[in-house]
């Protein structure tokens, strides 16, 4: 029992509630957003330290024993993800102070941001499938409103596509949950992982179709090929702070759910891993090729999200390998990749927002000369951009290196070639942004858009915009220089993921004791 587990869910929820109460005072809402995000960061770090030193932490909500009540559980993967959520939440909260206009704040931007963080943390910490569905919906509802907040024409248009496809994925997920309950009579993930191997022997096709429904449901949310079309149609429409939050967190919740389902809940079948591996290879290549056709910074970055998701899914797909060392390395690489990617991708979207704040546009053809006029921002762009492409010695290089090494060990040469090609094409794409937005001389007349010089930004605003960007860039460099620190954590979490006995013991062990205690009270021998 560890009550620390509820804090990452309760803190943002409480902050959201307080912000709703202080609806009229925008100043109070801003202060609350910062305090809430800071407190979440502290709680998440505390949870991570406690998981790292004492092993998996479990909380049975309301003291109901395990398979009956709702379980909150944090293993290393969950706690890493919660720390990253808090990090992105904090960075975006600070950035929003300068980026989000008064009108959006007065329509509840900050409370919605906190509700979104609640949903994301909840999804990472729950140990129950239906509860996962509920947290997904909390997260989605908040993201729906955040996406269309402001009501500009492209926003509501992108909103329709986003809402429709995400609802479809929820339906697919819900159907899978319903079928699992019908065959196993439980929705506790640890309990399912013990019961499903036997059920899959009697009903192999049923479990396989459940796996398919999960791939469709979470695949839409993660944005894997061929289910990603909502992502580039909507992510570039809201303000930069919102799209950075989405780009950093939302698709990764889908990836997390896929990893959790396919390592813990469902029995491991080579067929589904091979399917995931194929989809991963296609996602990388198609995503990066999609980026080539784009001439708007955030659309290019949106396509790169898809391509990068491919790398993470590749780690999961490599579990098809027979070599246990390759499996361990693959999952460790996936965890490393997710951590690196969340930091880098959030940062790139934040930088694109700063470019927009300076020049009033995201279109590459109207941009230029930023390297000469704002060299500081140019350097801050280069760090995450090169890291995304996998240049040494930045974090992305180590992430890609580990993933490719795992692919070679698992002898999946085709997907390794795809990964290398996607890395090269990513570099070309990043050079395109660098060349068009930063290096080439600025166009004489900017058609349509209002031109703002650097002087238009007050020092305070510039500090709020560049503060989070600099912090995230420093983190990228730090991971790049000391990759073994993060990699040790990733490897330990991979060990936990591959051997689920510690997880099930942590959830059900306590539950069994509680059940026995109830039996003793009633005077019945178990």
């Amino acid at each position, binding site marked *: 029992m560890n009550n620390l587990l509820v804090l990452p869910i309760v803190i943002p929820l409480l902050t959201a509630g307080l912000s709703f109460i202080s609806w009229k005072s925008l100043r109070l809402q801003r202060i609350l957003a910062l305090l809430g995000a800071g407190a979440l960061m502290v709680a998440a770090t505390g949870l991570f330290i406690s998981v790292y030193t004492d092993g998996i932490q479990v909380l049975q909500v309301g003291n109901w024993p395990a398979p009956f009540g709702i379980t909150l559980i944090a293993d290393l993967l969950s706690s890493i993800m919660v720390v990253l959520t808090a990090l992105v939440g904090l960075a975006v909260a600070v950035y929003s102070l300068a980026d989000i206009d008064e009108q959006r704040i007065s329509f509840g931007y900050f409370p919605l941001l906190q509700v979104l963080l609640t949903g994301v943390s909840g999804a990472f910490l729950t140990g129950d499938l*239906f509860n996962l*569905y*509920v947290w997904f*919906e909390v997260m*989605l*509802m908040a993201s*729906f*409103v955040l996406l*269309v907040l402001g*009501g500009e*024409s*492209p926003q*509501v*248009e*992108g*909103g*329709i*596509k986003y*809402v*429709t496809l995400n*609802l*479809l994925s*929820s*339906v697919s997920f*819900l*159907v899978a*949950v*319903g*079928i699992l*309950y*019908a065959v196993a*009579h439980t*929705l506790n993930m640890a309990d399912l992982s013990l019961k499903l191997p036997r059920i899959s022997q009697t009903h192999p096709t049923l479990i396989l179709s459940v796996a398919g429904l999960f791939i469709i449901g979470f695949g839409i949310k993660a944005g894997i090929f061929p289910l990603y079309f909502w992502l*580039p*149609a*909507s992510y*570039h*429409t809201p303000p930069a702070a919102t799209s950075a939050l989405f780009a950093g967190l939302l698709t990764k919740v889908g990836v997390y759910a896929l990893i959790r389902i396919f390592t813990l809940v469902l029995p491991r079948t080579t067929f589904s891993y091979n399917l995931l591996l194929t989809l991963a290879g296609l996602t990388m290549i198609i995503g990066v090729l*999609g980026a080539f*056709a*784009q001439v708007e910074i955030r*659309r290019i970055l949106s396509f790169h999200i898809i391509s990068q998701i491919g790398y993470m899914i590749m780690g999961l797909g490599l579990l098809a390998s027979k070599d246990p060392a390759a499996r361990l390395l693959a999952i460790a690489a996936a965890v490393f990749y997710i951590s690196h990617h969340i930091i880098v991708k959030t940062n790139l979207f934040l930088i694109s927002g700063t470019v927009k704040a300076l020049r009033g546009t995201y279109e590459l053809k109207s941009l230029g000369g930023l390297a000469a006029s704002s060299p500081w921002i140019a350097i801050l762009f280069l760090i995450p951009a090169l890291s995304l492409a996998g240049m040494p010695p930045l974090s992305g290089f180590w992430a890609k290196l580990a993933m490719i090494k795992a692919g070679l060990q698992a002898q999946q040469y085709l997907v390794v070639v795809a990964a290398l090609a996607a890395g090269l094409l990513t570099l070309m794409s990043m050079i395109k942004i660098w060349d068009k937005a930063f290096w080439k001389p600025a166009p004489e007349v900017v058609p349509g858009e209002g031109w703002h010089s650097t002087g238009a930004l007050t020092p305070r605003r510039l500090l709020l915009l560049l503060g989070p960007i600099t912090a995230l860039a420093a983190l990228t460099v730090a991971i790049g220089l000391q990759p073994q620190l993060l990699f040790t954590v990733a490897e330990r979490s991979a060990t936990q993921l591959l051997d689920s006995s510690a997880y099930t013991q942590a959830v059900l062990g306590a539950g069994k004791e509680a059940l026995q205690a109830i039996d003793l009270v*009633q005077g*019945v021998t178990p």
Partner: protein
Amino acid sequence: MFFLLSFVVGGLFAAGFYLMLRRSMVKLIFGLVLLSHAANLLIFTAGGLVRARPPLIPPGDLVPAKEFADPVPQALILTAIVISFAVIAFAAVLVKRVYRTVGSGDVDELKATDI
């Protein structure tokens, strides 16, 4: 009854997907409604259909009688209904907003954010 409900679920899914593939945004909303109904009914049917056996433990016993109507799927459906109600309400308002900004109820007209 089980077979009848299975066909109803299948029919609802088919109708829902068909409506979603139409060009009208209003039909899109109805498609979403039908899909969420189909999912709920599927959970209900798959959870087992038992008539007139409430999940009550007779006085003196510790476990309920052999076959009983499982309350968990119904609880799941209740939650899912509330969630889908909220989401559909949001989607309906969003469609109205899109109609006002774009000036058309045709999904094919929504090309501004496409690739």
